[in-house]
């Protein structure tokens, strides 16, 4: 447990501890889970997401699924960051690489976003492409800010703990 115990001393375990095996393992497990979760959402709600990469004929569906996945993932990232850095500061430090770098990093996807935008353009749907381009940015940024604000209100309460340094909202 000595190796695990050391992680409790670091506020940014995935940055500070280097390539140690527990962190790498946490990132791998989390990344696998996040990607599988994304596959599950795409399978449950298949419209233009990366679950169906090939939509070469006719009008392409707007990639609502990828937009939803990225927005929800960003919202949860806002919640997680506040929870770990401002409320549960003594939580196991491996939670950050597991849930943040791993699960949420694996769940959200930037490459499917740019690929969706490109293919909407190439499919002669510049309006949908621009809509996807802008709405994903808006959804992701709003998601993180909203998640952080909500978590701060619920978790840190009226005591107003934390100086906010390095946190999300200004």
């Amino acid at each position, binding site marked *: 447990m000595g190796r695990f115990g050391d992680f409790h001393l670091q506020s940014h375990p995935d940055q500070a501890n280097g390539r140690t095996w527990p962190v790498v393992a946490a990132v791998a*497990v989390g990344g696998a889970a996040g*990607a599988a979760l994304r*596959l599950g959402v795409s399978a449950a709600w298949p419209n233009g997401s990366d679950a169906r990469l090939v939509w070469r004929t006719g009008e392409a569906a707007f990639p609502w699924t990828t937009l939803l996945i990225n927005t929800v993932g960003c919202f949860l990232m806002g919640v997680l*960051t506040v929870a770990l850095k401002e409320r549960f500061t003594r939580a196991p430090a491996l939670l950050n690489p597991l849930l943040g*770098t791993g699960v949420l990093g694996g769940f959200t996807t930037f*490459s499917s976003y*740019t690929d969706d935008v490109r293919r909407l353009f190439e499919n002669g749907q510049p309006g949908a492409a621009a809509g996807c381009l802008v709405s994903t940015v808006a959804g992701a940024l709003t998601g993180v800010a909203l998640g952080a604000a909500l978590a701060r209100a619920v978790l840190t309460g009226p005591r107003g703990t934390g100086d906010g340094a390095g946190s999300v909202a200004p």
Partner: protein
Amino acid sequence: MNTVLLVLAGGACGAVARYSIGLAAGPHQSRPFHWGTFLANMAACLVLGFLTEAGGDDALGAPGQALLATGFCGALSTWSTFSHEVLATAGGRRTAAAAGYLLVTVAVGLALSFAGSAVAAALW
């Protein structure tokens, strides 16, 4: 092979690759431009753009798509860490730097998606 298993394997590799790129890029908590996240996202955009068009229609097949596209590229790239970094930078009153990081990532990522698909289209 089972699609879920392939996505799990690709996702694990992609996330570890992103994490390793972040480590190689060095500590970045105070810098507005997060090279680790940027490079991981850009690599994924280029590779996915290439894969989508590689080998003609549906050459990748369902297993390749699950492993490389949904799994690896999906987990190598990230919106959650990226948008968090943008807002953290903006919250530190470096709004211009945050906007720059956002715009450069989106613009170059999109350009690399086009570049990847163009390379694949030229090869096949």
